[in-house]
């Protein structure tokens, strides 16, 4: 036992071999019960025999029994150390159960042909869904749209930074503006799509459309052509989430010691130079965190699109999520929709890992 551990262990354990053996026995015994119940249930499911199981709950109960035994065995085998493990183990098991099992089940579904109306239910179909995805121009189109949507974050970042600088300076009614600029973030994107997208941008009576007509745009259309529709969606999403980046950058700005900018001023740096050479580099870690979180938000973009354009016109505004939503909901194509989601998950994990590596390099203070 290391010195560090001794500090936290109140009593020294004297654990007998029999107790250890019993601890191991209950873990393996209960695991055997899980395996047995699962095997029986699978056999019944495959139609080999009937054991009278109505649902899959017996397997669940067996799993819970195993989990309880595992927790108990920690104390039996490792004594005081085991008790410490107990603080975390149940929660960890719970989280793992809620992520690993659905993920495994999701993988099974992803390689199935499952139409909700089919009387035959779910059927394994190998790589058919992958082939379909490969040849599906609308999925690739949705992925391409995601690149555009994600790139828009750079513009959002510039605006958010500018607003944060503004709110960080000594302006009148600063507190009021801070709250006012935060308001869009407090709105649900669904509300934004209805209030702004469907009401204010309504082409006949919507105030924005009236204003556009007054400016001389005869037939204002905000979702008519693919480019304009995509731009409008970007705009609505940006309006909702710029405050989020802004508040993070503002927090970062306030953490910068005043001495630094004052010293730069004394050294004769103008406002631009002091921003570019002092403030911006110091803000890089915060900026990158804000951008990364924003990218994660953006990759989930769906609600505004589903409400406003349903991906239209012709898939021009589709995000991957909204495309999968329609594939699943309208076409009841559960298997294919799940595969698309899985592929998207893999793409996101790879892209985010690369991005974080790159960001890590950038975020290091310049020397």
């Amino acid at each position: 036992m290391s010195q560090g551990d001794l500090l936290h262990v109140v009593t020294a354990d004297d654990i007998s071999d029999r107790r250890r053996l019993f601890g191991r026995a209950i873990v393996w015994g209960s695991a055997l019960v899980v395996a047995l119940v699962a095997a029986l249930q699978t056999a019944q499911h495959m139609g080999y025999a009937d054991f009278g199981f109505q649902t899959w709950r017996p397997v669940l109960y067996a799993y819970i029994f195993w989990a309880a035994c595992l927790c108990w065995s920690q104390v039996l085998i490792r004594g005081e150390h085991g008790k410490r493990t107990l603080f975390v183990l149940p929660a960890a098991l719970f989280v793992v159960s809620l992520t690993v099992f659905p993920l495994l089940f999701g993988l099974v579904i992803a390689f199935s042909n499952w139409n909700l109306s089919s009387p035959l239910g779910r059927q394994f179909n190998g790589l058919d869904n992958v082939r379909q995805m490969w040849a599906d121009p609308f999925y690739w189109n949705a992925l391409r749209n995601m690149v555009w949507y994600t790139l828009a974050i750079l513009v959002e970042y510039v605006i958010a930074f500018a607003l944060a600088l503004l709110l960080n300076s000594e302006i009148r009614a600063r507190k009021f503006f801070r709250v006012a600029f935060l308001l869009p973030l407090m709105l649900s994107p669904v509300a934004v799509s209805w209030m702004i997208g469907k009401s204010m941008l309504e082409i006949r009576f919507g105030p924005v459309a009236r204003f556009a007509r007054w400016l001389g745009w005869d037939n204002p259309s905000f979702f008519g052509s693919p480019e304009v529709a995509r731009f409008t969606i970007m705009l609505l999403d940006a309006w909702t989430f710029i405050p989020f980046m802004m508040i993070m950058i503002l927090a970062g700005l306030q953490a910068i010691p005043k001495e630094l900018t004052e010293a730069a001023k004394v050294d004769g740096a103008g406002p631009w130079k002091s921003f570019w050479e002092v403030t911006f580099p110091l803000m890089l870690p915060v900026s990158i965190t804000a951008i990364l979180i924003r990218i994660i938000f953006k990759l989930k973009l769906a609600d505004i699109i589903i409400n406003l354009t349903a991906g239209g016109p012709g898939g021009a505004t589709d995000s991957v999520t909204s495309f999968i939503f329609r594939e699943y909901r309208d076409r009841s194509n559960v298997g294919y929709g799940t595969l698309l989601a899985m592929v998207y998950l893999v793409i996101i994990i790879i892209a985010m890992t690369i991005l974080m590596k790159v960001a890590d390099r950038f975020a290091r203070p310049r020397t």
Partner: protein
Amino acid sequence: MKVNHYEYLMRAGATRRAVLKGAASMAAVAAASTGTLGALTRHASAQDNLRAEILKIPGVGKGSPTDADWQKVGEMCLGATKASVAEGEFAGVELTFMGLNNQNLHNFLFRGFLKPWEAYTGAKINWIDLAQADYNARLQQSIATGTVDFDILEMGAPFEGDTASKGLLDEMPDWVAKQIDSDDLVGYLKPPVGTWEGKTYRVNIDGDCHTFAYRKDYLTDPAISGATGVTEMPTTWQQVNEWTKKIKGQKDPLTGLDAYGFIDPLKGWGGFGFYFLEDRATAYAKHPDDKAWLFDADTMKPRVNNPAFVQAIQDVMDLIAAGAYPSDQINADPGTTAFQQFLAGTGGALTWWGDVGSMARTSDTSVVGDVAAFSILPGSDRVYNSKTGEWETPDGGNFAPNMAYIGWGVYVTSRVSGDEKKRKAAWSAAAHLGGKDLSLWTVAYPSGFQPYRQSHFNYDEWEAAGYDRAYIENYLGSNADSYNHPNAAIEPRIPGIFQYYSVAEDELAKGFAGQYKSAQETADAIAAAWEKITDQIGRESQIKLYKASLGL
């Protein structure tokens, strides 16, 4: 009115309008049997009083009804329930009701109607409200995952293939059929609709067909009629399309904004959007000698990419190319065309369910109440014969009203089958909502439902309620003519029908946005997706059910 009576009257030389002018369809049946076209003499009774009284709540032209009005109507129509259920008989029973919340109608009304019922019977109802676009997905998910969590269900007949065929519904007891007077239903809603393998499952609360609604002022406005040369509403799609193109550049007489002719919804609506392309296509595709029109009945091979449907798609594409629609039409779903456009004064004509007629007069959001007029769906100069693969040009054109959705009904799920008290409670609630008198109110005021009983076509009742006689004859006439049309296009009640529709509207939206090269390519994409669905669900069983639903 029965089709044979209708045909008899037509042969006798009566015009369609004269038949309907003479009396309600029931009266017309009576008239047909005596050989005269007289109005039905009605006997004053307590029943008449009740019907007249409920129609005064809140009164036509007095704004949209509120929850208090719905409760009042529910209370007044409780007579049939009191006759079959003792007070407090269902104390302790809890039921779950799943239905829609469109335009704050449907479930919102049911809540009000059933509140007095709950107070009297002692039962309690929990509600699951769904948006129309979410309905199919929610229902299918419940079925597929074995999680049906509702006892009473508001559902359209097309879903009977998904539910009744899987044993999820409870058979309707005889006393319910008597209480709701099933014989009063219009012909096309009688069995086989509402039944599956000989058993009845459905309490009707709606009758569905798409009709053609148009603005009379577009025919009389000097500038518009001067530009179009049209003073009588066109009756074929060919004419409607020409008229629509010529209206471009004119100003709407009501709003002063740009005028538009026929407005198609170009965006999907959870599968319901495909009905609107069907409205155009049935005229080309529904041949009088062939009951099938969506699929070949023997093979389930889609007809959606045959020349008839392609023509319908092409018509819409032509109008898009001509710039004949409002600028954001590509983003307008059917709800938008009806409520934000037509009723609010944009567009000279549209196809919709019949309830747009009563809404035009009774809804607060409508500005077209005085200028709206109705007819059956436009026809076509030529019709495609799928059997010969040739276009034919019948005398007088081909007309085929689209019985889109066959109406909402209330169904009871088999969750209650084992508990007789609960079962009776569920059916009693369903029967209350489908009651003869209550239904008169729902079809006269904004509810999402349109006339579906022969007794709904008694114009005197509508006139007494405050409707303009000519308007109501025109509006109800378009419904009655559609229901009774000998070449009506009835949709198949097969499993997964809304998947077919959803895929179709999704592909159509892509085609309209120019993602496919042509109408044919768009139609081929739909057909390919339909073939896939058929294979997924099972071709053989689909063929069997499709034939059964067509009565073949």
